[in-house]
């Protein structure tokens, strides 16, 4: 699903690499945590997968495609198979919950009847049934993040990238978000989640990849946030 082979990313000439010779393989359907301090390269890794940035050297395959060689015009279709969630939710304030989720389908030209059928299902999946007419500012932080997750998965992506999705939320709410992500993962979606949240990682017992200064220093199949505890 995602395969990095000695990938290096340098943003500015002469700067320290953001990623330094990372090799990593994430198979289909896996739930994988990326942990590490701020600036360790977690977000860079996610933006390379999404093909927002070019890799500087090495080879990277996502969904079977060599992302270094992918032409510009193929990027939109490629991204339709990847969902993204961020720490700051990035909802559209002037749209309702339903419209926010529907937006992701509208802008790739999905027909109205498909939108009317799919969006309620997805809102149900993330636990927001009945709140479809609310505005984002009427929702709690956890509910807003659920909307963002619903928007990320409404087009049934094969991969879900989550960059610190619980960074702005309290522990109890974070557990709820984690449960939603686990549910998304159970539908067959590969989930890659960058996080600082020790409790969540320790509880989930999933694969943990730790980055330090752009290098993979630990990769455990069923790990804890801080290594063997």
């Amino acid at each position, binding site marked *: 699903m995602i395969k990095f082979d000695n990938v290096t990313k340098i943003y500015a000439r002469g700067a320290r690499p953001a990623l330094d010779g990372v090799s990593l393989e994430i198979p289909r359907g896996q739930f994988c945590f990326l942990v590490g301090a701020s600036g360790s390269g977690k977000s860079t890794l996610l933006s390379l997968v*999404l093909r927002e940035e070019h890799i500087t050297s090495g080879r990277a395959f996502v969904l079977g495609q060599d992302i270094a060689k992918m032409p*510009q*015009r193929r*990027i*939109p*279709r*490629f*991204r*339709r*198979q*990847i*969902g*993204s969630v961020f720490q700051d939710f*990035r909802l*559209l304030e002037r749209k309702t919950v339903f419209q926010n989720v529907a*937006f*992701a389908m*509208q*802008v*790739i*030209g*999905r*027909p*109205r009847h498909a*939108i009317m059928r799919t969006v309620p299902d997805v809102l149900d999946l993330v636990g927001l049934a009945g709140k479809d007419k609310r505005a984002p500012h009427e929702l709690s932080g956890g509910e807003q993040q659920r909307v963002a997750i619903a*928007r*990320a998965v409404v*087009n049934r992506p094969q991969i879900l990238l989550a960059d610190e999705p619980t960074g702005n939320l309290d522990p109890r709410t974070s557990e709820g978000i984690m449960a939603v992500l686990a549910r998304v993962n159970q539908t067959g979606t590969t989930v890659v989640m960058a996080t600082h949240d020790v409790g969540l990682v320790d509880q989930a017992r999933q694969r943990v990849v730790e980055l330090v200064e752009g290098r993979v220093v630990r990769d455990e199949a069923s790990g804890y946030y801080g290594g063997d505890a």
Partner: protein
Amino acid sequence: MRLRFVLAEIAHGFRRNASMISAVILVTFVSLSAVGAALMLQFQVERIKGDWYGRMEVSIYLCPEDAVDQGNCASGAVSADQLEAVEDRLESAELAPYVRETSLQSAESVFEDYQVRFGGSYMTDEVSVEMFGPVIHVALTDPEKFEVVTDAVGAMPGVLQAVDQSDLFDRLFDLLSKLRLAALAVAAVLGLAAVLLIATTIRLSALSRQRETGIMRLVGASNLFIQLPFILEGAVAALLGSVLAVGALWGVAEFWLAGWVERNFIVVMGSVNPADAIAVAPWLVIAAVALAGVSSVLTLRRFTRV
């Protein structure tokens, strides 16, 4: 769904950017009005040229009694033989095809015309009939070929001067073409302003919708789909400007210029035709689309890339 979505986005952009959009409409309106005015002036020049050249003639001034050493007047006033030679020349096989009609005006009649024209001013004080010779007026079949006639008879004995009226026309046309150039210069400067303004509007619009476009890009919307609302926003504003310009040109031609010119300058200008405004309309619309297109290309290439 797609169309409705794009239209809703444009409407939203118009509401949010109302003042910028108004500025775009006004600047394109004024710049396209200048373009339209230049085009209409061109039409007008063509028409006046047609009218005037039809009336254009060559005047052959023959030597007066008081002629000293001007022209070919060494022998004093034009003699009957010399006059006949000139008239024969005009009727010759060489010149006949160019000459439609000739008429001879006597020296006395020319003197009277002069007095009527300048009567009462100092210009008539020292003037006597002896200073005027007869004039042959030659109407031409092809007004552009006046030189054939002036060259042929200009050097004949007894001819003071063969004058065509092209000098007069050329001065008028020169004035009109300078006006046209001025209008085009205004149009060019304002056109540049319009392009920059549309570009800025698109940029502002794109900035204010960065979150939307960011999400669009993330979920894999195509470039065209992301950019279309911005392109159309500029294009619709420019089109509105061109519609206003056409309306203004037509209104000015119909309600103001037509009457005014006819009252004051009918002889010089001929009449201004409001239909000209309709004739330039398609060009202005094309110009508006071009302005918006150039601006969009300039802005979006850098802005909403994947």
